[in-house]
């Protein structure tokens, strides 16, 4: 299958000729501008419609479509832009062509204005459809007739020069050939001889800008009548161009003629009108080769020699006669006699008018050089410009002259030589801080011009002080600091005349302090407007300086005066002062602290063991540090702490510092302690009490002897040997507790922070009345001090008790009940649960297929019966199909006809029913699918097909002849029966032969075959027949419109009722 879009493509063969109905006018030959008309007629000779038919014509090269000429069956097809779909790739869409239909297409072309003679034009049409591959028409072949035309107004020759046509210049000859005919010219020949008085420029010939000479066997000027073009297309042009050089010399006004002849295979030779060029010639000294110059011309010093050179070159095309040069010089430029020359040869000087030189005749293209020598006078101001001129005169003819000028720029300036402009130191080169230094500055201008705006910049060492500048006894004022300087260092000297001198003196003081071996330099630079910066060399002094420390200014001091306690930190300030004139390096203070104390922290210096490193201390500067000295524990009261120090540094003798003495003190403290009991608040009589006394040496000194004494209480009975000290049992003293004895509990050497825990037990006396308060007081004696610690107070709880009243005992007991054991909890028992059996309800008829049992009584007289047999699956499918086919309009009910078409009519076999069912399914399923498209419009072809028409006709014929009732189906699950009058169908079948299927008649006839054995079916059938009969007079378009848009609520309701009743059965 070859798609229509692939035919007529360039290079593709023509289609086989299958439809020989293409007619073209003219039939054999055509000429440019002629109109070609093609008509194509085709017919559907088949028995089925051809759908999607497309027709396409080819468009051969050389033919152009005539807009508006493309027609099908007389209807114009062009779009808005004038394009014909008959020539489009996809062809023109012609819709469907029914069997026997004939279609007619025509199209016209215009032959192009330029077409080659003998060109073969092939015209063909192609036809295709959805069902058929592309088929070609007969091929019509036409031959084009045309000829070229070279002799016309555009074929001509020209000669022209880019500028004035002077001898020696080039001119271009151009031969333009134009083909004004309709076909190509072949083997175009041009005869173009080189014009007289000119010479062909080798390799310059071009044909249409392309090099041409290499195609010739010889050079172009030797070739006669070469073929310049093999083919010159219609309306095409070609250009033959070459360059010639005008011979020299040549008289002014000479004429150059250019001529040519043109011919081709189709055109005899003809001559072109000749072109001419008039030559212009003259002498000329106007270009750059004629010049007047001075050497040197810039920065010429007074007294320097300057050479003036006049170059005279005849750049024209004619000789210059009687050429002369007249030189004019300024006063400051002195001419050197006897030094003038022409082309290097000395020239004779005129006595009168010596600055005028006769140069004689200068031929065209020739020249000479005149040189004269001069000297710049002195003195001259700087920048003086000396102008000289030379006037060149000649007879050409006519007479002409040219004045040329040149200039010399003089350079003059002052000079400050290094030999005579210096700074000299006065006095010794070694100085001490605070000394005065002095130097002399000498300035001398040795140049030929004065120095203006003189400014002297001093460069003194930044440490120098009291800088002053003097000229004689006068102190000059230093105005402003220069960039980067911190002091005024500039003095204006004004103008320094040529060959004059100035002498200045600079004085300054050496700073104190000042680092040892410091190099102190003083320099200067002179700035003038003409010379800029002139630097004078520096002079130097070396400083002799050292650091120093004194015992008065380097000390150890303590901040707080009170005595130092053990573990307390004393803050000691160290001050180190350099009273010398130089910085001290590696300053170190070595400390000697007495053994009772320890150097613990250093702030402000680097600690290295017992030494403090201060590093570098500038002259006059101080370094401070703070020391932390902690007094150690267990210190005797009478031993003060001493701190000594020795200061050392580079280049300094060791300096011992004054000793620092710090007073110290320490003592014990037992004022804070805890004394409590358990229980703490209320206690029953007879109950045991646990006592605890906690003590701690909260002071900073050692308690050498501590005595702890607690007086016994009458309310408490001591439990013997229950006393412990720090959980160590302590034996009682007789019947008394250790703390209740005369010496109490004695402790020795209790260090600060040590804790003492004393515990014992007592029993509350049974005879105490309720509410009695119980407590202890502990006395602590240590190091001539005494502290007391009071225990918590307990309240005694007591109540009445009756003897012999204890239940549960078979005898009386004078005592108290003890705690009774609680009953043991009862073990948990396991939970109980009950599993119910699953429910299994069983319904009636579950799983048992239901068989519908319907029966209807029918009248058998003059009527025949129909039978539609449904299985449950088919019935469900049919109902679902009807539910899906609700597209609105009457079309829904045609789908109902498809669904409930009977399987049997009458008591005989009706063979056409099966074919009708298949046809209805085929066509209506397609329509069912199409109606799912948005906005689809039903067309008559959707319901009108030949096979469907034939099948309906056969069914109606068989139904019209039917009689009796169909036999029952042994396998049917549902039987729907109906009755009809065969006579009615006979009439309808007769009418169907004259009607379209796109009318109500065939469908009304089929509706009579629907079932009516149940009321819903009967009502629906009657209403459907009624609705279709009401449209009996509608034509095809009206019926199609009703199919899509006619709304009948009663009919739709009847269908719903029938569907519902059947769905209930299903």
């Amino acid at each position: 299958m070859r798609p229509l879009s692939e035919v007529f493509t360039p290079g593709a063969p023509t289609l086989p000729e299958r439809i020989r109905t293409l007619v073209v006018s003219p039939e054999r030959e055509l000429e440019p501008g002629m109109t070609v008309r093609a008509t194509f007629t085709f017919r559907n000779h088949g028995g089925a419609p051809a759908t999607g038919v497309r027709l396409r014509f080819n468009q051969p090269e050389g033919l152009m479509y005539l807009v508006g000429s493309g027609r099908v069956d007389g209807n114009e097809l062009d779009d808005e832009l004038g394009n014909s779909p008959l020539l489009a790739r996809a062809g023109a869409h012609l819709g469907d062509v029914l069997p026997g239909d004939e279609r007619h297409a025509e199209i016209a072309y215009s032959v192009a204005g330029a077409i080659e003679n003998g060109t073969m034009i092939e015209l063909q049409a192609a036809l295709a459809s959805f069902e058929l591959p592309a088929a070609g028409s007969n091929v019509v072949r036409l031959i084009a007739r045309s000829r070229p035309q070279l002799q016309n107004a555009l074929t001509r020759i020209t000669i022209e020069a880019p500028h004035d046509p002077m001898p020696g210049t080039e001119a271009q000859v151009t031969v333009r050939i134009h083909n004004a005919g309709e076909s190509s010219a072949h083997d175009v020949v041009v005869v173009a001889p080189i014009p007289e008085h000119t010479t062909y420029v080798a390799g310059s010939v071009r044909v249409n800008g392309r090099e041409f000479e290499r195609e010739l066997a010889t050079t172009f000027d030797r070739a006669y009548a070469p073929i310049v073009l093999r083919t010159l297309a219609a309306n095409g042009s070609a250009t033959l161009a070459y360059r010639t050089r005008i011979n020299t010399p040549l008289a002014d006004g000479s004429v150059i003629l250019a001529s040519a002849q043109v011919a081709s295979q189709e055109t005899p030779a003809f001559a072109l009108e000749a072109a001419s060029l008039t030559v212009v010639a003259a002498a000329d000294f106007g270009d750059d080769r004629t010049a007047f110059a001075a050497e040197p011309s810039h920065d010429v010093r007074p007294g320097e020699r300057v050479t003036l050179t006049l170059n005279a070159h005849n750049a024209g095309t004619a000789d210059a006669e009687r050429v002369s040069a007249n030189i004019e010089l300024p006063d400051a430029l002195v001419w050197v006699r006897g030094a003038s020359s022409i082309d290097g040869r000395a020239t004779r000087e005129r006595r009168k008018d010596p600055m005028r030189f006769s140069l004689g005749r200068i031929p065209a293209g020739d020249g000479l050089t005149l040189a004269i020598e001069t000297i710049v006078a002195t003195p001259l101001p700087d920048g003086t410009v000396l102008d000289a001129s030379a006037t060149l005169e000649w007879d050409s003819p006519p007479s002409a002259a040219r004045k040329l000028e040149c200039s010399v720029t003089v350079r003059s300036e002052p000079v400050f030589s290094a030999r005579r402009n210096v700074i000299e130191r006065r006095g010794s080169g070694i100085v001490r801080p605070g000394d005065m230094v002095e130097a002399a500055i000498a300035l001398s201008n040795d140049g030929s011009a004065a120095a203006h705006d003189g400014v002297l910049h001093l460069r003194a060492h930044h440490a120098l002080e009291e800088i002053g500048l003097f000229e004689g006894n006068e102190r000059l004022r230093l105005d402003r600091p220069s960039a980067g300087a911190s002091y005024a260092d500039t003095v204006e000297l004004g103008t320094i005349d040529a060959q004059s001198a100035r002498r200045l003196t600079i004085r300054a003081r050496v700073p104190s302090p000042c680092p040892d071996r410091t190099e102190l330099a003083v320099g200067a630079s002179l700035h003038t407007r003409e010379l800029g910066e002139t630097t004078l060399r520096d002079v130097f002094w070396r400083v002799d300086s050292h650091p120093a420390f004194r015992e008065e200014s380097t000390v150890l001091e303590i901040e707080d005066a009170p005595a130092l306690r053990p573990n307390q930190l004393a803050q000691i300030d160290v001050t180190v002062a350099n009273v010398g004139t130089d910085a001290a390096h590696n300053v170190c203070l070595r400390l000697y602290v007495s053994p009772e104390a320890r150097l613990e922290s250093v702030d402000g210096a680097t600690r290295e063991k017992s030494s403090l490193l201060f590093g570098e201390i500038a002259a006059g500067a101080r370094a401070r540090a703070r020391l932390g000295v902690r007094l150690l524990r267990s210190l005797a009261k009478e031993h003060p702490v001493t701190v000594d120090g020795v200061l050392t540094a580079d280049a300094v003798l060791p300096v011992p510092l004054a000793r620092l003495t710090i007073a110290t003190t320490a003592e014990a403290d037992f004022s804070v302690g805890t004394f409590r009991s358990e229980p703490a608040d209320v206690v029953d009589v007879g109950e045991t009490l646990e006592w605890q006394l906690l003590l701690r040496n909260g002071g900073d000194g050692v308690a050498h002897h501590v005595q702890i004494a607690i007086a016994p209480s009458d309310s408490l009975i001591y439990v013997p040997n229950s006393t412990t000290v720090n959980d160590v049992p302590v034996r009682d003293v007789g019947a008394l507790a250790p703390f209740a004895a005369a010496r109490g509990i004695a402790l020795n050497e209790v260090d600060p922070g040590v804790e003492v825990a004393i515990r014992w037990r007592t029993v509350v006396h049974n005879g105490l009345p309720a509410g009695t308060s119980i407590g202890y007081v502990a006395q602590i004696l240590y190091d001539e001090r005494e502290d007391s610690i009071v225990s918590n107070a307990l309240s005694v709880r007591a109540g009445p008790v009756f003897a012999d009243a204890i239940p549960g005992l078979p005898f009386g007991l004078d005592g108290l009940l003890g705690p009774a054991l609680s009953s043991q909890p009862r073990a948990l028992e396991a939970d109980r649960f009950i599993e119910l059996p699953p429910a299994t309800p069983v319904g009636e008829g579950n799983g048992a297929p239901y068989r519908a049992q319907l029966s209807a009584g029918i009248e058998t007289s003059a009527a025949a019966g129909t039978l539609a047999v449904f299985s449950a699956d088919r019935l469900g499918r049919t109902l679902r199909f009807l539910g899906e086919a609700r597209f609105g309009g009457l079309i829904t009910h045609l789908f109902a006809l498809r669904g409930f078409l009977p399987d049997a009519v009458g008591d005989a076999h009706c063979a056409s029913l099966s074919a009708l069912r298949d046809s209805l399914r085929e066509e209506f399923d397609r329509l069912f699918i199409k109606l799912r498209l948005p906005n689809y419009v039903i067309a008559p072809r959707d319901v009108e097909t030949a096979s469907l028409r034939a099948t309906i006709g056969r069914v109606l014929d068989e139904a019209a002849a039917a009689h009796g009732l169909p036999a029952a189906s042994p396998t049917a699950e549902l039987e729907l029966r109906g009755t009809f009058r065969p006579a009615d169908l006979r009439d309808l079948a007769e009418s169907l032969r004259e009607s379209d299927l796109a009318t109500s008649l065939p469908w009304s006839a089929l509706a009579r075959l629907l079932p009516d054995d149940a009321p819903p079916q009967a009502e629906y059938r009657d209403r459907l027949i009624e609705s279709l009969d009401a449209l009996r007079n509608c034509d095809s378009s009206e019926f199609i419109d009703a199919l899509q848009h006619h709304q009948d609520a009663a009919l739709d309701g009847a269908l719903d009722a029938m569907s519902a009743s059947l769905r209930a059965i299903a």
Partner: protein
Amino acid sequence: MLVAVALIVALTAALVVAARLLSTRRRNAVPIAGWTSAAGHEFEGLSDAERCDLIFAVAALGDDASVNLLERALDDPSEPVALAAARSLSTLGRRTTLQRYLAARPGERTRRIADAVELLS
């Protein structure tokens, strides 16, 4: 000068008209179903209803090339067109091919097509 101005005005008007025509065509353009190009360039740009007609016409041929075309039409952007292809394949007895296609493309659209084919079979 007047001629040049007239030419510029005419050229501008022609460009405006051409742009409007192109935009109108673009608005009326139908979605491109790539499978139609296999049948030929002239079948590109067919409307949905025309593609349905093409499917029914091709299905009537019943050859292998037609079946291949119908398989490609199953991917048509229009669901009714794809349904037409599916129904044609079913009618031609190519249920295996159809079932394989439906299984390879699960989804709501496939389910609807399968239901409709089953309803029409």
